[in-house]
């Protein structure tokens, strides 16, 4: 465990050295600029749009971090040949993989936490001084704690995407890993269409294949509760529990494969 923790902290330090946290500056600039402009453009919908923008920006920035750092977690070590100096050390290969994963998870956690604070700060500013009668008409209050549910599920989704990127990183080049990870991300959001192929296909075999692919592909659409939260619709703890459990199990599967592939690689 200590080895995993040490590797994780090293990954986090490397991310900071790579100026990953500068994306927070971009995020804050985007939110502040948007909050100023939106009041002039949106006929009173600035709080709703700030919420949509904040949640989407958190997701997008987090996605870029998960993919562009995740694809290099293992492959960079191989390219720089630093893996040769690591392997002789008393570290198991699975500790290296899990440590890398934990490190990027920590980076994502720090990023998303800071983004959340900035997000709520902008919401406070946007809602400041708004007539209480107008506020009562909003679908959800400006400082709605339910936004944290959406952010939590965004974080859980990013854990899964990071695992996908890390898995590809164990055997593929960074460019191919990025393409495959993006591809799976998009497929994961549209996988529900595969479930309904019986409405457009006549071949029973094709329908069964589509259904099989649907169940195997990561179902990422279920992590998206942005619309529900922005419109004040309930997101139950049960739903969050099941979705999170799915993410953890799928991530565990991906990490198991990643460890297996990395353990079998010959670095001579």
């Amino acid at each position, binding site marked *: 465990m200590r080895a995993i923790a040490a590797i994780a902290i090293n990954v986090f330090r490397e991310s900071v050295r790579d100026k990953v946290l500068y994306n927070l500056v971009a995020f804050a600039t985007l939110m502040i600029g948007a909050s100023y402009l939106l009041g002039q*453009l949106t*006929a*009173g919908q600035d709080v709703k749009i700030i919420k949509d923008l904040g*949640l989407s920006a958190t997701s997008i920035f987090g996605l870029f971090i998960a993919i562009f750092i995740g694809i290099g977690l293992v492959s960079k070590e191989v390219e720089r040949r630093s893996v040769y100096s690591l392997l002789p050390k008393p570290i198991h290969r699975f500790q290296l993989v899990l440590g890398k994963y934990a490190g990027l998870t920590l980076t994502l956690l720090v990023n998303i936490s800071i983004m959340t604070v900035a997000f709520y700060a902008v919401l406070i500013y946007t809602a400041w001084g708004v007539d209480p009668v*107008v506020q009562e*008409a909003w679908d959800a209050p400006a400082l709605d704690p339910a936004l944290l549910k959406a952010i939590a599920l965004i974080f859980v989704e990013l854990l899964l995407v990071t695992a996908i990127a890390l898995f590809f990183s164990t055997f593929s080049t960074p460019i191919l890993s990025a393409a495959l990870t993006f591809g799976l991300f998009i497929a994961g*959001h549209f996988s529900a269409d595969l479930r309904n192929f019986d409405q457009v296909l006549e071949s029973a075999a094709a329908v069964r294949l589509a259904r099989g692919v649907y169940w195997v592909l990561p179902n990422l659409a279920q992590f998206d509760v942005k*619309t529900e939260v922005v419109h004040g619709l309930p997101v139950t703890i049960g739903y969050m529990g099941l979705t999170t459990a799915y993410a953890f199990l799928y991530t565990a599967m991906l990490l198991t494969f990643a460890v297996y592939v990395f353990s079998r690689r010959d670095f001579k």
Partner: protein
Amino acid sequence: MTAVAATFLVAAIQVQAVRERTYPPLDLDVEAVYVTSGNAVRRLVGAYDGLAADIYWIRAIQYYGGAKRRLDARPALPEPPPMLAAVESSEYEQLFTFLDITTTLDPLFEIAYRFGAVFLAEAHPAGAGRADLAVRLLEKGLVEQPDKWEYMQDIGFVYYWYEHDYRQASAWFAKASEVPGAPVWLKGLAATTLAQGGDRQSSRAMWEAIRQSSEVDWMRATAERLLTQLNVLDRMDEIQARLDALARATGAPPSNWQTVIRAGVFPGVPLDPTGTPYELTPDGRVRLSESSGLFPLPVEPGRATLSR
């Protein structure tokens, strides 16, 4: 090194300015909508449909505002005879498309339905003059939220104010009143509309209902302005009645306010709520001054046409 780089940048900007003066950039149609299907846009934006809906909403508002500004800037043309085709304009052509895409991306976007319906239904040049599309948009909202009484009220309003179809308006107000949680005055509004559709009192009742129920400043201000204008119509009726009485007494309609004041009908020239004097035509008719902030007055819906 910084100074050298800055010099190059300044030079590049100067060259660009010269190029734009010499070869002005093409005036592209920035309002073109390349993807008109809401479902297609939804596929393209993936998990970010809420944000995309907001972007299309902003585009819809900018499009509507830009078109209205252009039309307001044009010189006023005389009204065409009713027999001729209505003035056609392509200014609001894309408005329904923007609103349709917005509400497909976010089916719960209430303001897009309600404001959008007003933009669509409002008579040209203030709006698209397409009450049918306004109703279609609101009915689309009801598919997603069948118990949204506000949309039913808005449909009733469109039928009442823009289509003068009081039977349909009453039916929609009645339907809205049956939704649990709907305000109690909707039932009365339905009955009043059916009995007296087109009457100024029923118009007043409806605008008062909108003023009380609207959560948006812009809608409330519009309703308050309409209510003030209806009060002005009442006041003008009163003034006209006294002018007509004077005309019967003197045998000729008064042609100026001095005659009216000398006759003791009014102590001074009557003023409208903005403080602007009413005008008196040479044939003894009172009218609102064009310089008044309440000009033009609304065209009142006709009397109830229950034969429809």
